[in-house]
């Protein structure tokens, strides 16, 4: 039995959801199943931490707990949950569509680096390294100098972050590129043939290229800083990399495009899956050309729209970059508008088979578009000065992660019978979708209203009216956790396929 299958079998609670039969499809199924299962372990931790934050504020349990939990929650949601689930599903799609093995050293390294890195960061945070998932450089160093946390917590935290980054920027993208262009095809693994002209495959390749291209500069400046922290190179050698403006700009070029890459990849996955759920069995999008055009517009405009993270530095950020970031951000919405048209035109033209998988996917897509509107609103220079740093911005980041995750979870419903030879519990899945969407809408509009009222994000002192928003976040967060429970139940109660 493979290492991945053994780990799945031995996992309590979650193992039952992903038990894989030993067969010739193991090279495509095993590691993606292990990654999906592990991502749900992190989701469970992140969800409880997320719910703890309103509770900490409402019952005044102390800022230490709040900043600890917000750091752990953000890091767990973004990386070992959302990103790892995306890795799992994209590897599975690439393997089954191209007839390539989704295992091997790069896949194992991606899994180990992501999860060990996240564990090291968790330990560092428990040691006091409360920097939030955006790191806020140079806060990690300033925190040591001002006695907020220890140097050993900083070194451990940065080591964990480096592991996670290597898996996201190097091992995973390289594996997908190898599968797409180089590795040998095995006919017995190819279950649904697709070419590299297919919008679904183009979206995947674009996504990993963005990670690779925008991530390497970040690794280039993070590596010397880490080597200095290990005592391998002297301080003067890292002065160029440790300058806050250098680190912050390189970081946001990557972090912004990480989200965009995840979005491009999931839009590609929707383009690949929606035609398989059409009522007329045509297995076609309304137009591949328009779908591909939307992906290219999203790619080109998103690359330089990251300037919107720095509008409020005016005039330190020259106005030309602010206007550029403003225009490019609205350009991404043109790609989004074309995507909306393609999806609705496909449904209109070919009809839709109402399965839980397609509804979870479409629900995630609706969330993604709703969130996209808030993103372009805050990407307008004038509004940015009124909203940046408020819960509006934090809510946008959380909503896009929830939307992307919901899309991948829908995709998992679709892939699940192929992966496990079992079919999900249909009625529980339909119930899950209702609660998922209800909780999203509640959380989303609470975040927006709180942001509009000026409520600061990442702040351990919700005063006055802001506590009402906190209470609402607690209520809708509880419903969201219930929907996650139902999702898990729909997998745990799955039944063997009958042939």
């Amino acid at each position: 039995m493979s290492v991945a299958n053994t780990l799945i079998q031995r996992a309590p609670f979650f193992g039952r959801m992903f038990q894989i039969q030993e067969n010739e499809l193991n090279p495509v199924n095993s590691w993606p199943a292990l990654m999906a299962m592990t991502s749900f372990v992190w989701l469970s931790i992140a969800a409880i931490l997320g719910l703890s934050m309103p509770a900490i504020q409402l019952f005044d349990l102390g800022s230490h707990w709040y900043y600890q939990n917000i750091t752990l929650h953000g890091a767990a949601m973004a990386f070992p949950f959302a990103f790892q689930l995306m890795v799992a599903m994209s590897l599975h799609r690439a393997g089954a569509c191209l007839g390539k093995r989704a295992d091997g050293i790069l896949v194992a390294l991606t899994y180990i680096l992501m999860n060990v890195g996240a564990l090291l960061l968790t330990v560092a945070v428990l040691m006091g390294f409360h920097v939030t998932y955006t790191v806020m450089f140079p806060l990690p160093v300033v925190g040591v100098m001002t006695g907020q946390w220890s140097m050993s917590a900083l070194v451990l935290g940065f080591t964990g972050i480096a592991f996670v980054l290597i898996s996201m920027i190097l091992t995973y993208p390289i594996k997908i590129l190898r599968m797409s262009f180089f590795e040998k095809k095995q006919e017995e693994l190819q279950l649904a043939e697709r070419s590299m002209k297919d919008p679904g495959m183009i979206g995947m390749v674009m996504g990993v290229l963005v990670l690779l291209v925008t991530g390497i500069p970040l690794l280039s400046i993070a590596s010397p800083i880490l080597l200095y922290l290990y005592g391998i190179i002297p301080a003067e050698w890292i002065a160029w990399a440790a300058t806050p403006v250098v680190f912050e700009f390189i970081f946001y070029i990557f972090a912004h495009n990480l989200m965009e890459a995840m979005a491009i990849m999931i839009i590609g996955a929707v383009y690949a899956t929606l035609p398989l759920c059409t009522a007329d069995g045509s297995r076609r999008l309304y137009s591949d050309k328009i779908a591909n055009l939307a992906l290219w517009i999203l790619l080109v405009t998103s690359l330089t729209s990251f300037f919107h993270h720095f509008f409020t530095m005016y005039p330190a950020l020259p106005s030309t970059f602010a206007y550029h970031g403003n225009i490019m951000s609205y350009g991404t919405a043109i790609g989004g508008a074309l995507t909306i048209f393609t999806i609705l035109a496909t449904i209109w033209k070919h009809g839709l088979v109402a399965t839980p998988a397609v509804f979870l996917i479409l629900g995630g897509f609706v969330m993604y578009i709703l969130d996209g509107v808030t993103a372009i609103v805050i990407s307008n220079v004038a509004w940015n000065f009124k909203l940046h740093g408020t819960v509006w911005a934090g809510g946008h980041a959380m909503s896009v992660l929830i939307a992307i995750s919901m899309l991948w979870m829908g995709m998992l419903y679709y892939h699940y019978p192929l992966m496990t030879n079992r079919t999900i519990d249909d009625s529980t899945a339909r119930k899950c979708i209702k609660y998922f969407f209800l909780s999203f809408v509640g959380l989303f509009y609470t975040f927006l209203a709180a942001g509009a009222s000026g409520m600061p994000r990442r702040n351990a002192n919700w005063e006055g009216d802001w506590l009402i928003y906190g209470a609402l976040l607690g209520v809708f967060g509880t419903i969201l956790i219930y929907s996650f429970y139902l999702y898990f139940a729909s997998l745990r109660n799955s039944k063997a396929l009958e042939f």
Partner: protein
Amino acid sequence: MVDFIYTGWGALVVTLLMQIPFLIIFFSIVNKKAFVDNTPAETPAEKYTSTRYLWIAIVLIAFFVVNFASVKYMPTVVEANTKMANVKDVDISATSWKFDMSERNFQVGDTVRFIAKSEDTMHSFALYHPDGELLFTMMLMPGLETASALVHTFDKPGIYMVRCLEYCGVNHHGMRSVITVAEK
């Protein structure tokens, strides 16, 4: 009216104006083609094309209007419309977790240019109206030669709260100050 649009609550109204039509159209089509009649539509190809052009035109016009109308509220334009001879410069130094300001007391009608720098880590200088509205926020990145700067004219007396909106460590929530504006 336009002044309201470019506030936090105005942003929410515009967001809803974009989202609600999308939700209605999306759910109507999905409901019709998944539950009412999921047979393939016999819509002519030209109809799809004209709908596509109309849809993109609506999006482009909406984006143009929203951005064009916002120009007046951009800091460069606000500065250009201000008589700089009457502006009071206030220097602000932000360190964990306090703001040092060269002046904290003003009168209604005073036009002030807030010039802010961070001395240690990322901070921001966010000014709240006495009624709770966030007037503006400035991100302060340490190590920059050019300070962040914005011009603001006080229109109402009262206590204006100043907060840091960029997470800056374990006492981030405690980093705040006040500005007092008196009647003229």
